[in-house]
């Protein structure tokens, strides 16, 4: 298994999903060695974790998030900062040489940063390569088919052409892969993500958002967004919708949790729209600040331009908050009982937020029914699909060898 991050050193959903997926797979009897690009302490006992240290490197330290530069410390004592693209190259080279030493049947790689490593390992060993797509470059760039970094797109294109199988986390993502890279549908299997409910921390008696809690006692309603402040997440449109919402329902607060390159732009925009006092930016949160944000909300909003899966609405319902999501979100394929809107439809977004804020019957019905759908979710179905896929490819390898 080739992946870029695992909790607690994750910057987003990818690490969480890899962790939960591997745990469920290992319970099913799959023996996993997970190769990370860095070394750090962890408490994972259900699989082997191997740091991919390039030759001569003693330690790789993450400076910040998984997508920042890393500091490489060599045995001879010298240090070097390497950017993301460079790390990805180093990782590929290292995995190629690791592959020759290791025993394994399947190479399973998560997202573009590990694709070249996967291809290299496949070339060295002839083992089948499965590429698991949690997002593609045009999702992250947020600007349609032609948007994104051409170097990254080249890696994705090559990977998709050469992989033995592609796994997409939603039909939406499968469609995007077909659209962006002209890959035939038969090459791509949809395996939806799920959520490990037992891993979700429980709420304590007191919510850390004291101000919002107090406002709610005076009839205010809270609309929450949690995610990176980046083009993909479509927050400028949410703020434009927020302005319209506040005109109709003035006692509405918007809580924006997360960090990212759009932070200052969004601050400025909310001031320009005249809704500064209705929008709170809480910054990046973990732990209680994170889970209480879901809990304090009357409605969770994920208006992404393109969301390959989108875990946060499931986390929101765990804490009792129903969701409005964009039609362009994969999670909408497994959850029917939520409000949906096109990401560009600002009036539609505002209309549905106002409805949710003004009508308790709507919120209650959404919550009740989404909770029922959520309760039925588990990793089992996804893991069954994956292990069947493994079996098919191992059989193929055996036939070729024979």
């Amino acid at each position, binding site marked *: 298994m080739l992946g870029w991050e695992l909790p607690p050193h994750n910057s987003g959903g990818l690490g969480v999903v890899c962790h939960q997926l591997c745990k469920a797979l290992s319970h099913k009897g799959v023996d996993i060695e997970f190769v990370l690009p860095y070394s750090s302490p962890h408490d994972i006992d259900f699989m082997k974790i191997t740091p991919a240290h390039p030759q001569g490197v003693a330690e790789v330290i993450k400076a910040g998030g998984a997508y920042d530069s890393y500091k490489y410390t060599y045995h001879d004592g010298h240090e070097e900062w390497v950017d993301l693209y460079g790390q990805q190259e180093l990782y590929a080279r290292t995995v190629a040489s690791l592959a020759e030493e290791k025993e394994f049947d399947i190479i399973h790689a998560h997202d573009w940063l590990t694709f070249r490593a996967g291809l290299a390992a496949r070339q060295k060993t002839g083992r089948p390569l499965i590429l698991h797509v949690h997002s593609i470059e045009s999702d992250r760039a947020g600007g349609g088919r032609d948007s994104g970094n051409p170097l990254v797109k080249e890696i994705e294109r090559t990977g998709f052409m050469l992989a033995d199988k592609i796994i997409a986390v939603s039909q939406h993502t499968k469609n995007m892969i077909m659209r962006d890279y002209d890959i035939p549908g038969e090459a791509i299997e949809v395996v939806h993500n799920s959520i490990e409910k037992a891993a979700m921390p429980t709420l304590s008696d007191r919510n850390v958002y004291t101000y919002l809690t107090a406002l709610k006692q005076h009839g205010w309603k809270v609309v929450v967004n949690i995610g990176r402040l980046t083009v993909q997440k479509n927050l400028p449109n949410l703020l434009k919708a927020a302005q319209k919402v506040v005109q109709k329902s003035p006692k509405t607060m918007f809580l924006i949790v997360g960090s990212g390159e759009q932070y200052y732009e969004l601050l400025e925009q909310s001031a320009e729209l005249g809704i500064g006092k209705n929008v709170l930016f809480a910054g990046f949160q973990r732990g209680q600040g994170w889970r209480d944000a879901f809990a304090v909300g009357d409605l969770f909003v994920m208006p992404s331009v393109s969301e390959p899966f989108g875990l946060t609405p499931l986390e929101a319902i765990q804490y009792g908050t129903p969701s409005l999501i964009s039609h362009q979100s994969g999670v909408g394929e497994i959850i029917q009982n939520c409000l949906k809107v096109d990401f560009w439809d600002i009036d*539609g977004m505002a209309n549905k937020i106002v409805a949710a804020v003004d009508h308790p019957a709507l919120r209650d*019905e959404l919550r009740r*029914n989404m909770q029922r759908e959520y309760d039925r979710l588990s990793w089992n179905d996804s893991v069954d699909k994956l292990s069947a896929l493994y079996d098919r490819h191992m059989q193929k390898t055996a036939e070729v060898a024979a």
Partner: protein
Amino acid sequence: MKAIVLYLHVHQPYRVRQYTVFDTGQNHDYFDAPYDDRTSNERILHKVAEKSYIPTNQRLLDLLRNNPGFKLSLSITGTVLEQLERWSPEALRSFQELCTTGQVEIVAETYHHSLAFFYSREEFEKQVAMHREKVQALFGQTPQVFRNTELSYNNDIAYWADKAGYKGILAEGWDPILDWRKPNYVYRPSYTNHIKLLMKNYRLSDDIAFRFGNQAWSEWPLTAEKFTDWLGSDQDAEVYNLFMDYETFGEHQWEASGIFDFLSHLPEQWLGAHRDHAFLTVSEAIGTFESRDYIDVPDTITWADTERDLSAWLGNPMQQTSIKELYELEKPILDTGDLQLIEDWRRLQTSDHFYYMCTKWWSDGDIHAYFSPYETPYDAYINFMNAYHDVRFRLLQKGVEV
């Protein structure tokens, strides 16, 4: 004598368009969607007229002319009659032609296909009177037999219809009500002295309405010959009450299923099989047969779903609160004397609006059971409530605070 009582129900609601909170207080055109929209009443009426009303009436007219013994009963709501007058005079004329044969009887109901009986007896009676006048004007008949919306029925409704002078009333022949009895006789509602009760034989009705085109059904393909053999085999039966939506012919069961051929052969097959066989209209059946027993229905039954209750319309809090709030406007709305406002309020009472808000199949993931022009039940609720608030806005403009 052994008689078939064929009764067809014709109805189309005024669907609420995609009506947002930004329309509320601005536009009062709730029912006027653009022609190509899913909620366009005009487009849907054109489609149904073309696929169902016109071709079916053509065949029915031929059958009535060729078989003087062929009879049928129709109920046609005021809302569909208005739409036919406006958008398909040809289809309306074809219904009128059926009535000129003297072999077709029109059944009484509420003009707006509403659940008013359960919320306001006064409003209910007005709608029944409106419907009677419309039927008299268009068809030259005064209905003698009553059916309430969705065949909803209980002792109170029967008592009301008895006092109102109806000769008969229609209900679902639901097994828990009938107990050991069969629906194939005429009955009398408990606590009444004059009125008689016809109960739908749902098994035989559903063979035509639901199972006819189902190739997986063991009796497929169903021919008129086979069907009349079944009917003839019950020695003691007096009436076979075949009640169904008119749109069964051509809309629910497509022409390619052979439904029109079935219909075309039914009269000659049934009448030709035995000299005792007959077709009767609802009031003819009531006049011909004695009532065999009293039927006690304390709790409301309908002809819908496996539950046969009102839960598809009034089962969740969105449905319960929206209908309750709508009826709470009754007095102030009527006091305005504003005919357009009153009519819009009445159009919002049509039961279909509440049916579209039903989540019971939705939450089980069985969304195929959800027939609606809206993407989700929540969208139905949001559009409806925005229109409801506009009705209140119009009251407010007239200085009426509610």
